[in-house]
């Protein structure tokens, strides 16, 4: 016999209740075994849907097809104003990068790089990491593996932790280059989204708190001599939540 509060429980787990209504559900959970069981099942389903079920992605063929249709509907004189970039990518395609990857990257890179070159670098590094599947050099959900690996390969030891409980699952780390400088990248999964967190040392330039490029949100912060940048296509609020968790961690690290 399902509890009459079952639907309210779902609204609670979906983050749809205000604080007062959420408190009512929380105290109800303490006394209702039926709802506790339902809660753990819904959470297990959610994890499975986000981590085990297939999240389909657009392939290069579809991207090229849409681009061609857009070209047809864009006034001719304004299209293909960057032959150099196209030629460069066509050349790259013959080399190490597959044509499919080149097509999907060219799709983004054809847009003129405007604004801060660092933001362009970060956005491109993020896109590369997702498009090329070179997302992770060290695959691990354990901070005790990722942190020493980054220390050894990037000469940096940024704070690393698994925040699965808060919705950010640590999935690994890699080394990437921003403006030619080596940076340590920790990679988190948030729902279906990937968040790359870059860290690098001794960056003197002024940085904005946020930026948005190509629909990706970017959040910057500093801690000690390290500069951090988190980028993802998830909402800016989610990225800020992760940045707060990492800032808290920096303070704990400093005390240790």
């Amino acid at each position, binding site marked *: 016999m399902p509890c009459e509060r079952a639907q309210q429980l779902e609204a609670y787990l979906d983050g749809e209740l205000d604080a007062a209504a959420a408190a009512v559900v929380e105290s109800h959970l303490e006394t209702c075994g039926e709802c506790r069981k339902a809660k753990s099942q819904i959470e297990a389903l959610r994890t499975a849907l986000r981590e085990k079920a297939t999240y389909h992605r657009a392939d290069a063929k579809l991207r090229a097809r*849409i681009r061609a249709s857009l070209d047809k509907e864009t006034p001719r004189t304004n299209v293909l104003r960057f032959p150099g970039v196209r030629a460069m990518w066509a050349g790259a395609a013959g080399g190490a990068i597959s044509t499919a990857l080149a097509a999907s990257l060219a799709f983004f890179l054809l847009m003129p790089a405007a604004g801060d070159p660092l933001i362009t670098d970060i956005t491109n590094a993020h896109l590369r990491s997702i498009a090329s599947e070179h997302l992770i050099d060290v695959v691990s959900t354990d901070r005790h593996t990722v942190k020493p690996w980054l220390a050894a390969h990037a000469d940096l030891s940024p704070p690393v932790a698994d925040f699965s409980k808060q919705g950010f699952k640590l999935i690994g780390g890699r080394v990437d280059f921003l403006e030619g400088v080596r940076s340590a990248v920790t990679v988190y999964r948030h729902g279906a989204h990937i968040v790359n967190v870059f860290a690098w040392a001794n960056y003197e330039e002024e940085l904005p708190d946020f930026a948005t490029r190509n629909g990706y949100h970017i959040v910057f912060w500093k801690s000690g001599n390290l500069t951090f940048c988190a980028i993802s296509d998830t909402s800016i609020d989610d990225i800020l939540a992760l940045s707060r968790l990492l800032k808290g961690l920096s303070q704990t690290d400093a005390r240790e």
Partner: protein
Amino acid sequence: MDDRRRRFEAQALPHLDAAINLARWLTRSHADADDVVQDAMMRAWRAFDGFRGGDIRPWLLTIVRNCWRTSMSERKRRGHVALPEENTQQPGDELTYAGPSPESAAMQSDAGRKLDAVIATLPDEFREVLILREMEDLSYREIATITDVPLGTVMSRLNRARAMLREKWLGEVESEASHAL
């Protein structure tokens, strides 16, 4: 490239994965999903001046879902019956398919494939709310707008979708776990 085109590429194209994911789950066919998304992106492009800012993803997904509905009614009118593909993967998919997650398509477990199959058997109106809520992390209000039903209907469909999944999938996983003991 003119300014309108540049803005469209910068705002809409990062959500192409969300569009194709919804279309794949709605159509359960690689080729049909590509057609739906192609159609949807061109409609979005033509309607782009009417987009009033804010979060573009729900706006795009609304167009994707409308295109899917249109393609279904056209098929019915022409007498075609849409057959869901039993195994959502098609031969040749592995060549162009970018994978369920950036780690590796090959890593998708048996449990993942079974879960995919169970989701595919849910009726359309339950499958779509589940995908929008759990994979796209959209709010009830956004889902209500996209699927064009009242908020209460979103809640009851989501509740029903989860109940079906719990029964079909958790039941299977648990019985396997007890067999393994």
